[in-house]
């Protein structure tokens, strides 16, 4: 069972944390120079960002959070040394209807494929459903992001929308998929056991 004592921001190897304005821009700037990461993370034309631009981005992000109150932004950090691993975002929250959109990514190639994203997604879902009390969440992902699609399916997300040829990249046209998960589906699968998809043996 989940209860007040169950940490919201900690999983086995990672924790969700705040932005570190001094250290993080350097790290995230490197990610933006990695086309593999950028095409997984961004739908719009990508461009590399210098650390100063990343820093500016953090500042406008925090202003937006303050003004609109419908965005939660977490950094994903290693539990062992608090190193920046990625980001996890809950955005466009529609409070009246109880829905929001998720986005997360692990920045550096060697850190991907180790189950860290799954741990972050587990935390983010609990935050969305058990803390914000949302009714449902959506993840939008291009069809070429096979690892992300496998991950969200493991968490019970259902493919709901397929915008045909909505991503033109690498000289090809790709569909853009939207996956949805209802609170009731999440509760049935995970909440009662208080576990993530991984430890459920999926």
């Amino acid at each position: 069972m989940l209860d007040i004592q169950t940490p919201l921001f900690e999983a086995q190897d990672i924790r969700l944390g705040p932005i570190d304005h001094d250290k993080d821009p350097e790290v995230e700037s490197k990610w933006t120079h990695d086309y593999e990461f950028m095409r997984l993370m961004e739908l719009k034309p990508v461009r590399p960002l210098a650390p100063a631009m990343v820093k500016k981005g953090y500042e406008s992000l925090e202003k937006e959070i303050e003004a609109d109150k419908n965005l939660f932004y977490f950094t994903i950090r290693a539990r062992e040394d608090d190193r920046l691993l990625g980001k996890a975002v809950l955005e466009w929250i529609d409070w009246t209807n109880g829905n929001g959109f998720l986005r997360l990514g692990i920045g550096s190639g060697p850190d991907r494929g180790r189950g860290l994203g799954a741990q972050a997604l587990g935390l983010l879902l609990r935050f969305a459903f058990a803390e914000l009390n949302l009714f449902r969440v959506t993840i939008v992902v291009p069809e070429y992001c096979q690892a992300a699609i496998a991950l969200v399916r493991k968490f019970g997300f259902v493919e709901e929308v397929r915008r045909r040829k909505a991503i033109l990249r690498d000289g090809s046209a790709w569909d853009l998929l939207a996956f949805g998960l209802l609170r009731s589906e999440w509760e049935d699968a995970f909440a009662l056991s208080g576990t993530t998809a991984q430890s459920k043996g999926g």
Partner: protein
Amino acid sequence: MTVEDLFRGKLVCLAGIEPEEISKSFAQWNRDSEFMRLLDTDPPRLYSSKAIKNWLEKELEKTPDMYWFAIRTLEDDRLLGDVTLSVINWGSREAFVGIAIGAREFWGKGYGTDAMQLLLRYGFIELNLQRISLNVFEFNQRALRSYEKAGFRLEGRQRQMIQRDGCRWDIIYMGILREEWMENYGNRNSDQ
């Protein structure tokens, strides 16, 4: 292919937005709660025409990627509503369309469909888009039929996105590709 008049359809024309005029109209249209609930998932607010005008002028300035038109009748130049095409991704050439027919007596008579067909033509032959998308609420069957008539295809539904009157409703996604539009509508304008 030459088009005689990009902004002129069978029943309506697309015209420039006149902030003073359209904000007055919206302040009236918004008092019709059904209109508001078909238009947006946000709870309706009854903004003054002054507030609407301020918002609209800011919006026109800050969103250059939004192509915004007034819809007027050909017959007597009456303002019926508005339609916007927001390019969300120039790299992939995708835009979302939103349309509102505020004057109730023009619902269900083909005015919206005519405006939508003009907008599609504008999107595909002037902006050279690859696809145009929209979403529509499950309880707005009239709009759904109009979009199908204009050539949109069903692409999925986000389950239970909206809660109103104690019920949950889906949001339906539709899209039309450049090649689909060209095949069905593009030829009408070609010289034969």
